[in-house]
């Protein structure tokens, strides 16, 4: 790297961070059994994608990536509301929270 290149953080670093965060979230979704912690891990994955989107927005000098990130946030908020509503409503019928035991659709 030249002297001028040391002044900022290149796009590759942002993409690497985004990938690491996404993999953490994916691992959390796969190994966790508690639906609340599963939702937390999904939030981690959504944030990772936002880091990449905003990074590309800066790379191309275009606002569209940030618009995309904001819409991802809205979808995340909606998803959390519905997800938590489902968790609470499942929990009222069963005394245990475990995604492996939610194998019936009957309400």
């Amino acid at each position: 790297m030249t002297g001028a290149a040391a002044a900022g953080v290149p796009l590759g670093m942002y993409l690497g961070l985004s990938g690491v965060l996404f993999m953490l979230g994916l691992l959390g979704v796969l190994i966790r059994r508690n639906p609340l912690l599963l939702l937390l891990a999904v939030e981690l994955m959504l944030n990772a994608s936002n880091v990449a989107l905003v990074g590309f927005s800066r790379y191309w000098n275009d606002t569209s990536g940030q618009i995309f990130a904001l819409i991802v946030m809205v979808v995340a908020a909606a998803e959390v509301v519905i997800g938590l509503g489902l968790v609470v409503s499942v929990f009222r019928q069963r005394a245990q929270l475990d995604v492996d035991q939610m194998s019936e659709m009957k309400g």
Partner: protein
Amino acid sequence: MGEQIAFGLAAAGAIGCGVLVITLSNAFRAAVALIGTLLSVAVIFLLEAAPFVAFVQIIVYAGAIVTLFLFVLAYLGERVQGSPDRLARYQVFSWIVVIVLAAMGAIVLLSTKLPGIGDAPRPVDDIGSPQAIGDAFLKEHLLAFEVTSLVLLVAAVGAVLLAKRAVLAERGR
């Protein structure tokens, strides 16, 4: 140079808190660790010339969404701890999937021909201010903006229906 130090600190905070989110068995602590990740990612957004997105991240994510999580955790109380994991012996497959995906991502990232991916970022125009965001939303992405309001409406109606059904079920007992 200061930007790189800030990036290093924020990235370390985000990854460290992310590891805590997926390893802590106490759901309450995991939610608080998620706040650390969200604030670190907000710092990353500031470095990426997106101040508006950064503050929306703090207000909506760290403020509203995590508060909602904490409310539900407090409501469900101690009972969220869950049963012992009967499928623990299959966890190795999760690790294989994640490691293979990470290796694929690393190969793509290291071999990409995207020009300037490893260089210092070029100077940007005013792309992150509230004015620029509002312009882009209402001039170029109006449909997405309207769909957003529809998504929020559907989520609100769905949450109300779920709550109503739960209340009715409790009254029947």
